[in-house]
């Protein structure tokens, strides 16, 4: 079976090449067929692999030696095990749906840009696959930066608009900052162990070689990488700006797959983290903080995609909370469910935007329920899922994380729940403003609003189904023994950590209580939100105070500019204009100027007067005699000097 592995990334790569090179000649339909077909093909292969893994465990298949120096050896190898196969499914599956969706969504583009779009998208899937399939950190890093590249290209897809380009650059650079951490961690591993292959790093023998400081440092650095990729505090600001890209892209890259790479990476190296409690605490705290912080911002955003973006950041925070408290399964579980419903939300938003002719401000929407029923229904389901209403998928995954975090510290739990409440609030604020109430847009908009084509609705429906039933793979133990099939599936990956981490099981009664309580609170919050915004008018008072602060995202971007960007620019200018020109180059030229000045002075010695010449000669002779008499002292002087 493992000889099929290389096919998985191969198909998207081929799709990329075909679409990229033939983008001028091929028709749109052909392009979309190729693009989506490639992903579909690798989805099929992934399915085969998945069942293969389910049946008889993971396997590593090496293609060739990527780098082989005598410091270390890095094979270009793929590792397909429970974790990666699960991600394969998510990536290719959702990827396919989004490709399908895009073929309709992007239909207005000129052929060659259409082709370019699909090429990028395929390339992204390819890199993402490298990321999750790589059998060592270097291959993962290749995919890691590859997805960064694609996100850069796709955010800046409409490159005529310079703001989009800036957003793209911001995303790439911020990712780069994280990547540096990742890279240093890899160097550290290579330095200490001489290998970066999971199979070798995670052996007890090698782990024993690492001092606890090493492990803490490595995990910290890896986590820095994760911050960049998965948009955690302080490196999260690029994600909201990344919404400049086409909506399907946001759905695929900035919701479902790429941003979860950080979670994947930490889950992949879970053992290291379990061995580094300090880092775990950090991860948990950062995650939680991000979750709350992003949620607060999301409360007051008016751009439909921005809301979703911040909610993504917040949900990612939950996942890191899960990782931090050692609920690796929960984190991965949440990745999966979140992929379903967040992709669904974005696609829904996309279909709305598409219908509204690229109007993204929810204050100008409303009452779309009757115009586009499918979108509305699926969107509602997704909202329920993310809000965490049982038995939708979000409930199970989020609950699992929160429960685990309660085990570590109740404080985590309460803050987490608070975040969940906010989630429920802003999601239903969004839902209400968009679909309920009466239409607040212009007339021709209202006239044109229509349900989208099948290529767009089918993915919506599929995803809706998934986000409704997706949670059932992870039913908590309290409901039924061994019901948590995901946990059993992933058990081999986290076995080691599970051994190390101590398990604190809650009383079933208390767990029921927590579930019930949180659910109740959420429902109340939903009702409140719906009522609050049902009667919303475009003419509402300007925000003030805290809400203004929230609307402006706590002014974090401005803060970064003031603290980091501008000083750096100033420094660069100082170097360029002062140090370089006057300082170093000035010094170099100064030598030359000194020479010519000396020349101008020395030639005055040549006065043209024979008398002076002879005078100098005589004096020189006198000096010679002096030298001759005092030779010893002079020699000693020289010896002192040199």
């Amino acid at each position, binding site marked *: 079976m493992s000889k099929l592995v290389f096919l998985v990334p191969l198909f998207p790569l081929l799709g990329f090449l075909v679409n990229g090179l033939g983008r001028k000649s091929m028709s749109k339909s052909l392009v979309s067929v190729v693009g989506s077909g490639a992903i579909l093909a690798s989805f099929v292969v992934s399915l085969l692999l998945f069942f293969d893994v389910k049946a008889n465990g993971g396997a590593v298949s090496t293609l060739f030696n990527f780098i082989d120096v005598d410091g270390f050896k890095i094979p270009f190898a793929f590792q397909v095990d429970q974790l990666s196969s699960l991600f394969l499914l998510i990536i290719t599956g959702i990827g396919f749906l989004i490709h399908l969706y895009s073929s309709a969504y992007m239909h207005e583009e000129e052929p060659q840009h259409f082709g370019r779009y699909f090429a990028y998208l395929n390339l992204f899937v390819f890199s993402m696959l490298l990321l999750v399939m790589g059998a060592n950190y270097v291959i993962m890093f290749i995919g890691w930066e590859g997805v960064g590249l694609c996100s850069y290209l796709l955010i800046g897809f409409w490159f005529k608009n310079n703001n989009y380009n800036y957003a793209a650059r911001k995303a790439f650079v911020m990712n780069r900052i994280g990547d540096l951490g990742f890279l240093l961690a890899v160097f550290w591993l290579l330095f200490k162990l001489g290998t970066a292959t999971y199979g070798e790093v995670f052996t007890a023998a090698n782990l024993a070689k690492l001092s606890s400081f090493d492990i803490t440092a490595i995990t910290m650095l890896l986590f820095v990488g994760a911050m960049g990729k998965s948009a955690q505090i302080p490196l999260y600001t690029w994600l909201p700006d990344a919404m400049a890209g086409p909506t399907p892209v946001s759905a695929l890259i900035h919701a479902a797959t790429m941003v979860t790479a950080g979670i994947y990476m930490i889950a992949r190296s879970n053992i290291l983290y379990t061995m580094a409690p300090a880092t775990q605490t950090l991860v948990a705290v950062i995650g939680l903080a991000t979750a709350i912080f992003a949620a607060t911002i999301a409360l007051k955003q008016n751009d439909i995609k921005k809301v979703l973006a911040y909610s993504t950041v917040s949900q990612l925070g939950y996942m890191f909370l899960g990782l931090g408290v050692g609920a690796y399964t929960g984190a991965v579980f949440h990745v999966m469910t979140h992929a379903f419903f967040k992709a669904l939300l974005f696609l829904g938003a996309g279909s709305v935007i598409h219908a509204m002719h690229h109007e993204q401000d929810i204050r100008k929407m409303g009452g779309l329920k009757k115009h586009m029923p499918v979108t509305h229904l699926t969107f509602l389901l997704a909202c329920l899922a993310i809000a965490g209403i049982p038995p939708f998928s979000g409930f199970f995954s989020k609950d699992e994380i929160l429960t685990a975090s309660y085990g570590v510290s109740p404080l985590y739990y309460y803050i987490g729940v608070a975040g969940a409440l906010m989630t429920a609030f802003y999601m239903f604020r969004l839902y209400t403003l968009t679909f309920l109430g009466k239409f607040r847009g212009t007339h021709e908009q209202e006239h044109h609003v229509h349900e989208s084509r099948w290529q767009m609705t089918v993915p919506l429906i599929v995803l809706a189904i998934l986000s409704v039933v997706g949670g059932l793979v992870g039913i908590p133990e309290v409901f039924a023994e061994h019901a948590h099939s995901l946990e059993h599936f992933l058990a081999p990956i986290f076995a080691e950590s599970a051994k190390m981490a101590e398990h604190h099981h809650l009383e079933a009664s208390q767990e029921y209580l927590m579930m019930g309580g949180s659910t109740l609170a959420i429902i109340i919050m939903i009702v409140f939100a719906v009522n609050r915004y049902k009667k919303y008018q475009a003419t509402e008072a300007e925000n003030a105070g805290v809400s203004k602060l929230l609307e402006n995202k706590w002014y974090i971007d401005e803060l970064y500019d003031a603290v980091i960007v501008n000083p750096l620019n100033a420094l660069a200018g100082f170097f360029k204009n002062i140090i370089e020109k006057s300082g170093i180059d000035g010094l170099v030229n100064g030598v030359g100027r000194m020479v010519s000045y000396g020349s101008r002075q020395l*030639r*005055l010695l*040549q*006065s*043209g*007067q*024979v*008398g002076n010449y*002879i*005078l100098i000669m*005589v004096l020189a002779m006198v000096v010679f005699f002096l030298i001759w008499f005092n030779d010893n002292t002079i020699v000693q002087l020289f010896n002192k000097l040199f």
Partner: protein
Amino acid sequence: MPIQYYIYFCLTLFSIGIVGVLTRRNAIVVFMCVELMLNAVNLLLVAFSKMHHQVGLGADGAASQAGIDGQLFVFFIMVVAAAEVSVGLAIIVMMYRNTHSVDINFLNRLKN
């Protein structure tokens, strides 16, 4: 007569010549001072030759020719001096023809 006397005396003459070269501006006088230096040298040479001659006499009898080379050298110096004078005066005269002056301070077309 101790040799030091001659040494100091000739060195004095020599230095006077140098001082003359340095202080006078008339090319001819400067040249004369050079001649003065040469004469000081001649005298010193003769003195030395006589000095060495005495040593020679002490060493190998009355037939000794020691120190004679010194006097011959003086002879050659005179010869050379004569030649130099002829050329030098010719040059000075030529100079005088073109610029009606022999003042060396006016020799400053070439400088720097």
